[in-house]
């Protein structure tokens, strides 16, 4: 075992350009250091022979290995025995890639197996025996030891790799998930996170329901304020002018007509609900029109000529019902 590891560590030095082989050997070394369980001396020897064959092959970027067809019946029976203990104990990995340009040969070691790593375009399965795959399709094949080579387990393994890839994405997304290893713990974290997000939404909607009566007055200021928060670096200078006008408008309105607004709010709550009408005209009717005109005049005096779209939106906000203002704001948003 050790001599295998040592000898395999020596060989990468000669073939540094074959990164694929380096990876294979690194993995092999890791695995052999960790797991010494079965006495596969003969198998190792063969495996090592094959590795040397592979390493001594040409220095193209793709690895090629020609393997004599092994004794399949023996290996199949042993594989069948080991399929039950399907743990990744040892891997003799041969990465054989096949291009359209080159003829690749699927390398199968005696006791190793071919696990299929199919590309998305390719859906064909390799058979368990050694075969010369001369299709123009792209086949990634990874041979592993101690595992079956039939198509079911290959497909299952491909699926499992997909799942682990997605779990990694989830791990990036969920905070604090990197501490936990293993699927079960990660899934627990994910479930907790989703539950907490849903509870947050519920809590926020509770707070919004409590705040809701005050919604009418500043709803359209939200658009102008929130939109720059979302769309950070819009180059439009007119948008920034619009934003400034809106921000100036906001403090101006409560200023001259503060008490009027409060009373208007009470009135609007006391009034019976009128279907189809907004509640903005009610406080407006109550508000002195002079207040609104004052605020309008000051606004128009202080600001540089705002872009026409926003000017239109502003006047509608002041004068009319909320639905039209919302439509204008949508129009504004769509124009962005």
């Amino acid at each position, binding site marked *: 075992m050790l001599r295998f590891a040592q000898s395999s560590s020596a060989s990468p030095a000669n073939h540094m350009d074959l990164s694929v082989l380096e990876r294979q050997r690194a993995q092999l070394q890791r695995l052999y250091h960790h797991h010494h369980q079965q006495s596969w001396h003969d198998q190792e020897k063969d495996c090592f022979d094959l590795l040397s064959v592979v390493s001594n092959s040409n220095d193209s970027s793709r690895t090629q290995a020609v393997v004599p067809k092994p004794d399949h019946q023996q290996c199949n029976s042993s594989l069948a025995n080991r399929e039950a203990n399907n743990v990744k104990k040892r891997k003799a990995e041969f990465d054989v890639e096949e291009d359209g340009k080159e003829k690749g040969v699927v390398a199968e070691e005696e006791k190793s197996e071919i696990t299929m790593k199919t590309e998305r375009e390719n859906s064909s399965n390799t058979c368990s025996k050694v075969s010369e795959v001369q299709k123009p399709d792209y086949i990634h094949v990874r041979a592993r030891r101690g595992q079956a080579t039939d198509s079911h387990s290959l497909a*299952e393994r491909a*699926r499992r790799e*997909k*799942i682990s890839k*997605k779990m990694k*994405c*989830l791990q990036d*997304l*969920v905070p604090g998930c990197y501490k936990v290893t293993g*699927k*079960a713990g990660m*899934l*627990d974290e*994910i*479930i907790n*996170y*989703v*539950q907490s*997000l*849903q509870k*947050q*939404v*519920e809590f*926020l*909607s509770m*707070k*919004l*329901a409590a*705040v*809701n*009566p*005050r*919604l*009418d007055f*500043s*709803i359209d*200021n*939200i*658009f102008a*304020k*929130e*939109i720059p*928060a*979302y*769309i950070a670096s*819009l180059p439009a200078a007119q948008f920034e002018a619009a934003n400034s006008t809106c921000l100036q408008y*906001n403090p101006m309105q409560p200023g001259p007509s503060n008490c009027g607004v409060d009373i208007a709010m009470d009135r*609007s*709550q*006391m009034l019976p*609900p009128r*279907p189809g*009408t*907004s*509640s903005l005209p009610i406080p407006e009717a109550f508000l002195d029109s002079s207040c609104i005109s004052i605020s309008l005049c000051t606004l128009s005096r202080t600001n540089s000529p705002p872009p026409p779209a926003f000017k239109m939106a502003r006047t509608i906000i002041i004068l009319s019902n*909320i*639905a039209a203002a*919302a439509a204008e704001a*949508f129009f504004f*948003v769509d124009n962005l």
Partner: protein
Amino acid sequence: MKTDHKNPTTNPNSMIKTRFAVRFLHDMKKLNKKTPPSPYRRRFHTIRAAACASMSSAVGPRRAWSRAILRKIRARTLHDYIINKSRNHRLITRRKSVGLLRGNPRDQEEVGFRQEDDLRGLVPGGEGMGFCRLLSETVHYIKCLRAQVQVMTNILDHYNST
């Protein structure tokens, strides 16, 4: 979380946020227009449903979970139209039992029945999917939930500041 350095207008996350914000505020205004002095509890339920609905319509029918929510809403309105206003439990549970394709049993053994079932219960529309698909839907659902929370927090902060 990684930030996108693309043009913000083409950033899908901010586009979803904008769409959601627009629809949600529109729904809230509608709510306000209808019954301004409605009781708090009813308002709360309506706002929660509006948040859910506007999120799923902002995402569109591209994702299975948004389709499931939209289906549920349409079924609920249809049910309300046909019968009196009542909860639409029956339709929803029937759909659940029909689409009850469990994932690969080996995954359940590996992961544990409980967790996969929990996840299916959490993610809308998760009943009729394989485990692999369930995970990708969960990824997208988490992203959208986060965006929703951010938007609603911004709205609340805006109210509290003014």
